[in-house]
């Protein structure tokens, strides 16, 4: 009996884009049957990390807030995992809990300050937050290793099994990305209306009795926690927790993934990260050139395809898909006029 209500409840929570995102992540489990190429694993891992970071951007964009604090919270999650692991915590789920909760808890007091601002001011204050995290990392060498970072990451365990296979980094990232997406799907689905009304017109929403700070704090908590998981994933891949992995400018990458993938759809971060990371690798750009490539692509996306990849796919599906599925996806609240905000 209970099963039924759980299923109904779960079906209400999950929408199609959410299922599709989880299904795509699930399909990646079968990668070893397709290839044993270490490069494919490395690209897969990078895609998953990028997608998790972009997911943090996506969650806040649902409230029309562009979040530059992602690398800052990634650093908190990544360093928390690295420090815990060096103290003997090697279970991946325990570390996942730490790398989600610590940035999440930190986001509450930080959010109490930054969430009072919106628009341009929110962008600037979150950018400065990430800069502050950088400075704190460098100024506390006894805990964080300072400019040397924390080198080495012990072998992780899952269900008591040591993860020594060369593919394990990929699977750790896959697990963390799946957790991140699950949390984000559930949150954005439960609070869909609240987030949308904040995005559309927060003043009006508040006048109708919506407690803005509560929902903004929930969104920021999830965004930061998800970023923390991405940070753990990144540190596990690089085997070092270093300030340079979490610069404020690296936020641009996650924002690019979210925008290219489509900011109106949960699938967006995954699609954007998959496209940009694999194209970057295919064209074998070094880091410097990929920045320019991202730059051109996000400019094109903003000018001609505001829905991003997921938006284009949804349009196609709306035109070509089976009739019973031809319903509109929620459109992203894209345009906020500066004039209107005066």
């Amino acid at each position, binding site marked *: 009996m209970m099963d039924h209500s759980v299923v109904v409840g779960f079906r209400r929570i999950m929408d199609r884009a959410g299922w599709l995102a989880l299904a795509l992540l699930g399909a990646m489990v079968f990668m070893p049957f397709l290839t044993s190429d270490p490069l494919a694993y490395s690209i897969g891992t990078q895609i998953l990390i990028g997608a998790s970071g972009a997911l943090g951007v996506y969650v806040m964009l649902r409230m029309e807030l562009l979040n530059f604090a992602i690398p800052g919270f990634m650093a908190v999650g990544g360093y928390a995992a690295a420090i815990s692991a060096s103290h003997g915590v090697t279970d991946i789920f325990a570390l996942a809990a730490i790398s989600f909760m610590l940035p999440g808890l930190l986001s509450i007091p930080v959010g109490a300050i930054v969430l009072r601002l919106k628009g*341009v001011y929110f962008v*600037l204050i979150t950018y400065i937050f990430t800069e502050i995290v950088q400075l704190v990392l460098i100024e506390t060498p006894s805990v964080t290793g300072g400019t040397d970072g924390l080198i080495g990451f012990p072998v992780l365990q899952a269900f008591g099994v040591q993860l020594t296979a060369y593919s394990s980094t990929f699977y750790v990232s896959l697990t963390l990305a799946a957790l991140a997406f699950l949390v984000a799907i559930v949150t954005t689905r439960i609070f869909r209306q609240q987030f949308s009304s904040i995005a559309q017109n927060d003043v009006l929403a508040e006048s109708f009795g919506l407690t803005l700070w509560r929902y903004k704090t929930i969104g920021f908590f999830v965004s930061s926690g998800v970023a923390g998981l991405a940070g753990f994933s990144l540190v596990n891949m690089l085997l070092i927790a270093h300030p340079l992995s979490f610069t404020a400018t690296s936020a641009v990458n996650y924002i690019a993934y979210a*925008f290219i993938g489509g900011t109106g759809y949960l699938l967006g971060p995954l699609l954007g990260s998959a496209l940009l990371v694999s194209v970057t690798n295919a064209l074998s750009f070094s880091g410097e050139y990929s920045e320019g490539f991202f730059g051109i692509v*996000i400019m094109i996306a903003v*000018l001609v395809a505001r829905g991003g990849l997921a938006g284009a796919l949804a349009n196609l599906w709306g035109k070509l898909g089976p009739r019973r599925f031809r319903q509109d996806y929620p459109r992203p609240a894209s*345009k906020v006029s500066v004039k209107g905000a005066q």
Partner: protein
Amino acid sequence: METVLSTVLIGVMLGAQYALLALGFTLIFGILGVVNFAHGSLYMLGGYLAYAAVAKAGVPYPAAVVFATLGTAALGYLFEVWILQRVVDDHLATLILTLGFSQVIITGVTMVFGHEAPRFTFPIVGNVAVGSLFIPQDKLIVFAISAVVICAVYWLVYRTGFGRAMRALSIDRAVAITLGMNARIIFPLTVALSAGLAGLTGSLITPILSLSPHAGESVLITAFVVVILGGLGSVAGATAAAFLVGIIEAFSGVYIGGSLGTLGLFVLVIAILMFRPSGLFGASMRGA
């Protein structure tokens, strides 16, 4: 006492540089409502253009500075006309566009000049003795140029028809347009002015500090800090805040050292954003 005096002097000179940098950033926000994430990259590009003119074409340094200023201004003009103008009222879109533009500039410069920092030095070295103080000549020259340019920008914004049109468009575009002001002419010119100021600052300061494809990143943060302290969009506020930041940085550099001073400055900025979002010095040109 001498240390204090020389620290104040360092701070004031630093402040003039920051003011030059922040003026362009605050203008483009004040008039168009655009937060220009490419401002740091334009600064860096200005440095590289001047370097290329001096090292590759053998142009004298003062001419190279003019070339860098005009070059970055032209690029800013084209960026506004071709790209920014299409979505100028969508603040999220313009922000992403400037981010993309910044990345393209950095990559373009890296492709042409490589990753390594080129050797680009100020043509004049040596110190001027004032009483018992020694002031580096290069910084003195930069200070003088900055002061002149800041005054020129003031004159332009507050004393000319062009400036009045700019301010009118930022206050109420619909009314300004019905009165005959053309945003399609004024906006690109404002972006060109802002970009040119960034380029000028870059061509003057990178020979003293350092030049590399990522030199613009730290500069962008400084511009953020100054402009937030001064009130986003406020020209007078940015100038005053620039000198304040310059003096704070000079003192923390001498007496605290390391990045703790910067950390303190960031915390101050957050406090300002919380309690006085219009900046330390009152009203800004535009709300956000």
